[in-house]
């Protein structure tokens, strides 16, 4: 099992969810997060005062998938989340040691 973490533009959450559902990903967790990368931040001006907004809003999705689904998951997220503009986000993949479905007690891939 692998944990796929993707940080994407907020408005890409729905396209990514739809595309992942199509390839058989059965669940994901999404969080509203803030951060910066190469896009840096931007400035906002209120009543003439300039404020630097260093952290931009992003959505972080976390998906645990069986090993054989990792490549397709990454490709699918990339295709669905890409705008070609700076700030599209990143994808990380980590190993997952164990898993369990709380309701049934199933473990491993069965729990996904």
């Amino acid at each position: 099992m692998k944990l796929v973490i993707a940080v994407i533009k907020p408005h890409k959450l729905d396209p990514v969810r739809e595309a992942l559902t199509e390839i058989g990903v059965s669940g994901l967790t999404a969080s509203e997060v803030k951060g910066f990368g190469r896009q840096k931040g931007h400035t906002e001006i209120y009543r003439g005062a300039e404020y630097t907004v260093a952290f931009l809003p992003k959505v972080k999705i976390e998906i645990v998938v069986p090993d054989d689904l990792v490549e397709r998951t990454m490709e699918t997220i990339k295709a669905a989340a890409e705008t070609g503009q700076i700030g599209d986000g990143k994808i990380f993949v980590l190993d997952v040691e164990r898993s369990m479905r709380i309701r049934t007690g199933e473990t491993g891939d069965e729990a996904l």
Partner: protein
Amino acid sequence: MPSPLRIGGLLAAGLLLPVPALAQDALSAGDTAWIIAATALVLFMTLPGLALFYAGLVRSQAVLSVVMQCFAIACLASVLWLIAGYSLAFGDSVAGWIGGLNKAFFAGVTPDAMSGSIPEIVFAVFQMTFAVITPALIVGAYPERMKFSAVLWMSGLWLLLVYAPVCHWVWGGGWLSKLGVMDFAGGIVVHATAGISAVVIAVVLGARRGYPEHVRPPHNPGMTATGAAMLWVGWYGFNGGSQLAADGGAGMAIAATHIAAATAAMVWSAIEWIKFGKPSLVGAVTGVIAGLATVTPASGFVGPMGGLILGFAAGIVCFYAVQIVKFRLKIDDSLDVFAVHGVGGILGSLLVSVLALGAFGGGGLAEGQSVGGQLGVQALGVGVTLVWSAGFTFLILKVTGALTGGLRVSEEEEIQGLDIVSHGESGYDIGR
């Protein structure tokens, strides 16, 4: 409100000395109905209008604290108004400087007591809503850092020592009204007093932590716009109600008020568009409020053209006043109470001397009064009000600081935010 009498657009303001409760006209159901409605509109300006206007401008960890401050001040000012405030403002004059205590606890304000063509109780409660919003305006000077106990002490003392006397001078038959000062709905009484006091508080209290480089931007401009819209609607009651009659003068006051707000918003937006490349919502609604504050003292004395000119002046002058106070003087009057309300109110209080002329569609000055003469009276009224308000606010802060063991919360508490620190609540906890 120069008088509870009908003044009409053509009557000269200076002829009508405010003598509330002395004039025993027959009750006008129309006038009474309008002033009761206007009373509700003016309360709506504070709750929730001003509360939301300010709440959107602070950081998210202080959103509830400014709303709470507005609610608490509304309650406190109402009770103090009943106990002594109304009497200090509208009781029998003591040498023109303060009302006596003959109307304490609304003594003598029975259902039959009249004030012009409306029952005095209607007048007293209408005035109460002005006493509510004026100290609440000052909340914009000290958000995110003042102890709640200090807010209460200061606001209560301020109502009795600053608002009530100045209200007496101008509307309660005091010395300024005898001189013929023109302040239709509170350029001097409301906006100048609150504005200059805001500056004094900001200086004595000190700036927000990290000011000016590292303060947080407004956390919710949409909330601010919602509040500004409510203020705009409520201002119909503030200025239109100050005619104290349901007549053409009230209609004209509302017309001038509305045009001034619209014009100032357009001017403010235009300046931002030119200077910064984009017109912002916060800027547009700040322009609205600047226009409304500026037209307030003039609203019943000028026509729609006067409103247009006042709005235009407000947009330019108040915009640059914000820049000067914040960036040149480096005073953290955090939500620009002085630059928007104070400067606007003073500007309108001076410009009315000219814009009340028939040539601008106004009702004219008092018979025999020249523009220069009226301007002198206006400047005197503004000047004395500024000195009185600033001086007493300084004293009140010293007393309050002694009573509450310092005016400010600790730096750690300021970082954590007043919502949790002062009130034990959070505006935006997710997941519950």
